[in-house]
C-alpha cells in the first residue's frame, strides 16, 4: 500500500459526454482533495458538473461519458487505470455512494435486508444469515425503528426517509473511508432532511468517514461542510473553507447566489436580488468566462479570456475582478 498525501485527490480531471448535439465538457479541469474525516461540499445547479464529478470518481459514468484527461487517486491508487472488477472491489468496500432518489437505487423486488447485506456477502464473504443480522444492526444504527421487522420488508413499504436511511446503512456496511452523497435529502421533507443530515453528521464524527456532499442547497452546505467547492459550467469557480466562502465570496456567482435566496431569518421584505439569465447551454458555451453573460461585475476582459482558478485572499476563485484585488461587496456598494 503506497503512502498517500490525501485520501482522495483529483488532478485536472476532464470528463466528456457524447451527446447528439455535440460533446459536452461536463467536468472541465477539476482539481481538489479530501482528507480523512473531512466533509467537503460541492455546490452547483443543473449542468454545473457536480454529479458528473462524483460519477467520474466512482467509475459510474453513463455509457457516452468518459474521463478523458486527469488523475483521480484514492489512497494513492490511480482509479482511472483500474479495471471494472478492481473498481467494483473499491466501490463495495472503501468508497460508498448514495443518491438522491433511493427508490431507484433500491431494487423493488428484493427485501431490503437482503439488499443491504449484499455488499457484505460479496466483499466480506458473509453467509446469508450473518449478512441479514448485520443488516439489522445497520438499520438500528441508522435509526430505522423495528429493525428486525423492517429487514424483511420490500422497499415500497418504506417511506422516503427510511429508504434513504437504508441506503446510508448499506453504504456504510463495509466501513468505507469515503462516502459520496449526491443530493441525499433533496427529495425529502425538510423535517426528514434534518434527521438524515444529523445522521450523516453523527456517522462522520463517530466513524471518521470522509464525506463529499453534493447539493444545490447552500443552507445544507453551511450546516454540514468544512470546505466547499462551487461549480459552474463544469468548472470550479470558487473553493475554500465554508465560513470564508459564505462570509466573503470571491466569485460573482457565489456572491449572487447567496444574495438571491430568501432566508427564513431575514427580517425586511426587499425584492430578491435575482441573477439575470439562465444556466449556460453546455453544448454552446460562450467564450471567456462562462458566468460573464449573467455577471453583475463583468468587465470587458471577461467576455474574451477565461480566468484561471487562483488564490484570492482566503479562497481559490476564478474571476478577473477579484483576482485584481477588488472585493465584491465593495464593488457592489460603490456602484
Amino acid at each position, binding site marked *: 500500500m503506497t503512502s498517500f498525501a490525501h485520501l482522495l485527490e483529483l488532478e485536472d480531471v476532464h470528463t466528456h459526454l457524447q451527446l447528439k448535439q455535440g460533446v459536452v465538457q461536463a467536468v472541465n479541469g477539476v482539481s481538489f482533495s479530501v482528507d480523512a474525516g473531512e466533509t467537503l461540499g460541492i455546490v452547483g445547479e443543473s449542468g454545473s458538473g457536480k454529479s458528473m464529478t462524483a460519477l467520474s470518481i466512482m467509475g459510474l459514468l453513463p455509457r457516452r461519458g468518459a474521463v478523458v484527461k486527469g488523475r483521480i487517486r484514492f489512497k494513492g491508487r490511480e482509479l482511472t487505470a483500474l479495471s471494472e472488477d478492481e473498481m467494483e472491489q473499491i466501490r463495495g468496500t472503501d468508497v460508498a455512494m448514495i443518491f438522491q432518489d433511493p427508490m431507484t437505487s433500491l431494487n423493488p423486488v428484493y427485501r431490503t435486508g437482503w439488499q443491504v447485506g449484499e455488499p457484505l456477502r460479496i466483499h466480506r464473504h458473509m453467509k446469508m444469515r450473518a449478512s441479514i443480522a448485520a443488516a439489522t444492526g445497520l438499520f438500528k444504527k441508522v435509526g430505522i425503528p423495528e429493525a428486525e421487522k423492517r429487514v424483511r420488508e420490500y422497499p415500497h413499504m418504506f417511506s422516503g426517509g427510511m429508504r434513504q436511511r437504508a441506503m446510508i446503512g448499506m453504504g456504510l456496511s463495509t466501513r468505507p473511508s469515503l462516502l459520496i452523497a449526491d443530493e441525499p435529502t433533496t427529495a425529502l421533507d425538510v423535517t426528514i*432532511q434534518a434527521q438524515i443530515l444529523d445522521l450523516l453528521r453523527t456517522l462522520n464524527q463517530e466513524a471518521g468517514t470522509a464525506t463529499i456532499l453534493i447539493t444545490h*442547497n447552500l*443552507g445544507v*452546505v*453551511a450546516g454540514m461542510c468544512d470546505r466547499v467547492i462551487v461549480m459552474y459550467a463544469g468548472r470550479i469557480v470558487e473553493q475554500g473553507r465554508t465560513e470564508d466562502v459564505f462570509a466573503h465570496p470571491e466569485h460573482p456567482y457565489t456572491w449572487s447566489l447567496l444574495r438571491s435566496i430568501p432566508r427564513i431569518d431575514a427580517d425586511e421584505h426587499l425584492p*430578491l436580488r435575482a441573477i439575470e439569465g439562465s444556466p449556460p447551454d453546455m453544448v454552446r458555451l460562450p467564450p471567456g468566462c462562462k458566468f460573464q453573460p449573467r455577471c453583475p461585475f463583468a468587465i470587458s476582459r471577461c467576455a474574451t479570456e477565461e480566468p484561471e482558478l487562483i488564490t484570492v485572499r482566503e479562497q481559490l476563485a476564478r474571476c478577473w475582478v477579484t483576482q485584481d484585488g477588488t472585493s465584491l461587496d465593495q464593488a457592489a456598494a460603490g456602484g
Partner: protein
Amino acid sequence: MGAGSWTPAEPLLAVRGLKTWFPIRSGVVGRVAGHVHAVDGVDLTIRQGETLGLVGESGCGKSTLGRSILRLVEPTAGEVYFKGRDILRLGSSEMRRMRREMAIIFQDPFASLDPRQNVEDILGEALDIHHLAPAGKQRRERILELLGLVGLSSDYADRYPHEFSGGQRQRIGIARALAVDPSFIVCDEPISALDVSIQAQIINLLEELQDRLHLTYLFIAHDLSVVKHISDRIAVMYVGKVVEVSPARDLYRSPRHPYTGSLLSAIPIPDPRLEKRRERILLTGDVASPVNPPSGCRFRTRCFKAQPRCAAEEPPLDTVSLGDHQAACFFPLEA
C-alpha cells in the same frame, strides 16, 4: 349571501369546513376500503390583494386544498365562498364563468404545457374558451401583451415548449394563468422545479404582477423561506388540517404550534456560524398517515410536548388566538 353584494371589505375567498376525501378501493369489485383524508376540515380566508402562503410537508393536503378551492378536484364537504358566493353549489356554466376569476400556476413547467402546442396556441386556448378576444389582430395583440407581462420576447410566440428553459416555461405558465384576467391565482409549488438561480427571478415576477394587476395569491410551497418572503400571512398544514395561521413575520419569530417550531428549526440557513449554534428540534418518526390519522391531535405521535389530553381531544385552530395569529394546540410553544 347574494351575488353582487360582495365588497372588498369582506374576504375575497372564504373556505369553511372543507373536506376532500379520496376513496381507497380494494378487492376485485373495487369496494371502498377506506379514505385518504387529504383535506379534513379546513377554514381559511384570503383578503383581496393578499398573499396567503400554505406550507406543509408531503401528504399534508396543501396541493389538494388548492385544487379543491378551484374545483379541479371536487371537495367532499364544506363551502368555498368566492366574492360571497359558494362556488361549490354552482352549475357548470356558472362555474365556467367563475373560472375566469380564478387561475392556477402549476409546479412542473415541463408537464403542464402541451408539447404539441406553440406558445400562441397555449395562450390563445384560454382566450378562446372564454371568448375573450376575437380571432385576428386583437387576439394576437393580447398574446403579445401577455408575453410582455411575463418578460418574454414576442419572438417566442411561435415556438414550442421544448425550445424553452425551465424558467421560461414557467413564465409561459404564468402568462397562461393571466390570460383570463383573473383576480385570484393558486400558485402550486411554482418554483420548486427550477434552478436556484432562476427561482428569485420568478418570485420577483410574481410579486411585480401582483402589484401591477391587483392579484390575490394562494401560494403553496414546501420551502418555508420562499413562502415567508412572498406571503402576508402563512397557514401551516399537517395531515389534512391547518394547525397554525399567522402573519408571515410573526411565524418565524414566535411560532406557537410545536410542528411549526420543528419545521422552522429544520430549515437550513446559509450561514455557517449560525448553523453551528442552532438548536434543532428533531422529530422522531415519520409523518402520520392521512388514511388513519391519530385520534385527537394528529401531531401528537411526533410531538415532544404531547400530553394525555392531546390523544383524547382535538384542539381547534383557535385554541391559541392572538389577533391574526392562531394555533391548534393545548400546550403551545412559549412566545
